[in-house]
Structure formats: structure tokens, C-alpha cells
């Protein structure tokens, strides 16, 4: 376990070279804040009779809005995920670092899991940090009741987590299969950007990023009856299940290729 944590820390150090994190964070903060600052202005709801103090309601409204904007920051998240995955997989393979690491007494499974965890943590923690910053910036009073609606926070984290996992699954699989930094970087970004264009042009939010920002979002933040009436039957099931299934398949294929087939 100790060895595993050390490998994760080492991989995180590899990604967080100056000034990669700074540039990516600025990009993400700008994209999320510029939409949140505008969208927060329309947060309003009828509240009468005044029979319950609305602090949980105020927090959940803002967190719900920020979750939408974080899920809408798919391109920035893709960029961060692709940079992390490409650096840890194809770049290290190309420069011979993977061969060097494999000579150390670490199992390939642990090595893969450490890289996967490092790739996941960088964009995920960035999104969480940006979300908290946006919440405190928009409503400084909310520092007093940040945990008064824990389920709302958990739902927001679930959407962000699923989005990050999908992005890195696409990028890791392309990095491992191509063994080439430029090819994996460009093709991952092209696929993720293409998905953004396609999912915006079809009416049903079955493809990412609409499956996060519309499908999963409305399933978690609105009543499930509303969700199933808007997306009945297979449409709703596909909206919820397609992206996690594809993510899982990509990660399993990447794992087996990395641990069994990768020629050093």
C-alpha cells in the first residue's frame, strides 16, 4: 500500500510540472466562472409561506447551478484530462520511462492503477476546487452553511466524477493503444470535441457531455418521475447507462492491454 501511494505521489509530481497546472487551472476557472457569474443572476424562486429558514434551499440552488456550469466545462476538463493521460502513458512510453519504471519491483496492475488514480485526481480536484471557489465567491455567506445540504454536494461530485472518468478513459485508451504522444493527444481532443458537437445537435442527451449536463443532471437534481417522463424507456436508460458502460469498457481494455500485452 505504501509503495502504491508513493507511485501515485510520483505520478502526480510528473503531471504537476510548472506551469502546466497553473495554465490549466486558469483556463478552467475562467470557463466556469464566466458562465456561473451570468447564470447565477437568474436564480430565483417563489418562496412563500415563509415557514422554514431557506439556507439549505439557497445552498442547493447555487450548488445546482455551479454543478451545471462545471458539467458544461467539458472542453476545459477534456484538455486537463488529455494532458494528464498523455503525459503519464504515451509520453512516458515514448521516452522509455515506462520501461525504467517497470524494472522497479512494482506489479503492472498497481502501476496502472496508480497512473489511473493520478490522472483522475488532477482534473477532479481542480473541478472541486473551482466549484468551491465559485460557491464562496458568489455567496460568501455560504461558508456558514456549506454542508447543510450534503446530498446536493454528493450529487454534484457524482456528475463531476463521472465526467472526469469518461474523459480520462478515452484519453488513456488512445494513449496506450497508439504509444505516440502527438497521436494520442490530438486524437483524444478531436474525439472529445467531436462528441461535444454531436451531442449538442441531437435532441436526446444520450452522448457526453449532454449526458452529464442534461441527462444525469436532471436525473439527480429533479424528480425521477420528471426524468422518466421526459426520457421514457430506453432513451432514459441509455442516457444514464451508456456513458458509464463505455467508460468501463475502455478502462478494462486499457488495463488488459497495459498489463498483458504492452511490449517494452
Amino acid at each position, binding site marked *: 500500500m505504501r509503495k502504491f501511494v508513493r507511485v501515485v505521489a510520483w505520478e502526480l509530481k510528473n503531471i504537476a510540472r510548472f506551469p502546466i497546472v497553473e495554465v490549466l*487551472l486558469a483556463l478552467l476557472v475562467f470557463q466556469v466562472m464566466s458562465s456561473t*457569474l451570468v447564470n447565477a*443572476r437568474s*436564480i430565483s424562486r417563489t*418562496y412563500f409561506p415563509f415557514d422554514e*429558514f431557506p439556507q439549505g434551499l439557497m445552498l442547493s440552488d447555487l450548488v445546482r447551478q455551479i454543478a451545471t456550469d462545471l458539467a458544461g466545462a467539458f472542453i476545459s476538463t477534456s484538455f486537463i484530462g488529455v494532458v494528464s493521460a498523455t503525459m503519464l502513458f504515451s509520453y512516458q512510453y515514448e521516452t522509455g520511462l515506462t520501461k525504467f519504471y517497470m524494472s522497479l519491483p512494482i506489479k503492472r496492475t498497481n502501476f496502472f492503477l496508480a497512473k489511473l488514480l493520478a490522472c483522475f485526481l488532477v482534473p477532479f480536484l481542480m473541478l472541486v476546487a473551482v466549484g468551491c471557489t465559485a460557491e464562496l*465567491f458568489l455567496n460568501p455567506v455560504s461558508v456558514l452553511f456549506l454542508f447543510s445540504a450534503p446530498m446536493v454536494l454528493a450529487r454534484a461530485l457524482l456528475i463531476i466524477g463521472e465526467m472526469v472518468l469518461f474523459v480520462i478513459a478515452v484519453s488513456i485508451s488512445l494513449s496506450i493503444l497508439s504509444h505516440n504522444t502527438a497521436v494520442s493527444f490530438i486524437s483524444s481532443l478531436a474525439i472529445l470535441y467531436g462528441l461535444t458537437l454531436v451531442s449538442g445537435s441531437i435532441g436526446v442527451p444520450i452522448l457526453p457531455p449532454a449526458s452529464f449536463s442534461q441527462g444525469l443532471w436532471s436525473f439527480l437534481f429533479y424528480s425521477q418521475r420528471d426524468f422518466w417522463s421526459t426520457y421514457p424507456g430506453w432513451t432514459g436508460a441509455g442516457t444514464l447507462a451508456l456513458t458509464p458502460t463505455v467508460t468501463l469498457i475502455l478502462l478494462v481494455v486499457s488495463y488488459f492491454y497495459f498489463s498483458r500485452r504492452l511490449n517494452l
Partner: protein
Amino acid sequence: MNIPFKLLLRIGILLMAAGSAILGAVLMSTRFPYSESGSSQLAAYGKDGNIRYLNVRNYEERILVPMDFTGSFSIYDYEGMRKLWNGLNEPQMVFAVDGPTVMDFIPSYRGFYLLILRSEYSEMVNLEQSFVAKSGVEPDSLRDGALVVVSGLVFSLIVGVAGKITQQRAQRSERLR
């Protein structure tokens, strides 16, 4: 004590990067006006309550009611809401509504506010409300964005200077040895 100067310097630079992005986002996105309108019915001696997120900028509330209508429009901030919940009616601002009225106000800080229109009229009325956020830069958002940049800069400078001094002292003591 081994102080991780490099890590602290990175934190300062990250703060500067995030602050610059916030400043840019504030300048790019908050200058534009915004308006909303709706209609409903207000019962005799009834109330119409609305919780709304407001920034520090000029707002205009337009209320269209019959000419002989009388009532009041109150705005409660976070503390005001807490007090109201405990039975104390202490709004941050109160406006008299005698017939169709236009009210201008600037909230004192950004956050959630409760806006209540109370009717003192003996009949049910058709109520039309328009809410306009006028154009203009939000000074408090700009100030807070700049504060993050400056605090990152000051933090980086302090850590950078302290790191340099520590390094020089270590080199000097090594030379003396």
C-alpha cells in the same frame, strides 16, 4: 525545520492564476443588463415572496397594480431572513407601493435576498412584476478578484524572498564549516 518553499511558491502562483481568471471572467461577463418579468394574482391582504440571487449593482423593480392599490415591498438580506424566521420583521429596505410603482435599489453585498410584496388592499389584484438588473461592472466582484491576485502575488514574494534568504544562510554556514 525544512520548509517546502517551492510548494508554497507554487500555491502563490496558483492563487495569482486563479485570481487573474476570476478578474477576466468578471470583466467579460457581468457588465451586461438582465431583465425578467412575470404576472400573477395577489390575494386581498396577501403576500408574494421571492428568493433571488443579487449582486452589488443597480436594480429596478417595476410593479404594475391598480391605481388605488396600497401595500409595501420589503427586501431582506441573510440576517433579515433569519430574523423574519424568528418572528422579527427587520427588512434591509422597505418601499411603499401606492398604485403602479418603480423602485431602484442597490444591495449591500452579493448573495441571496428575500423580496416580499405585501398587499393592504381589500380585493384580489392582477400583479405584473418586472425585474431589471442595469448594466455596469460589479465593483465588489472586481475588488475580490483583484484581492485574490494581490494576495497570491504578496504570498509568492514573501515565500520567494524567505526561500532565497534561507538558501544563502545555508550556503554561508556550509562555507564556514
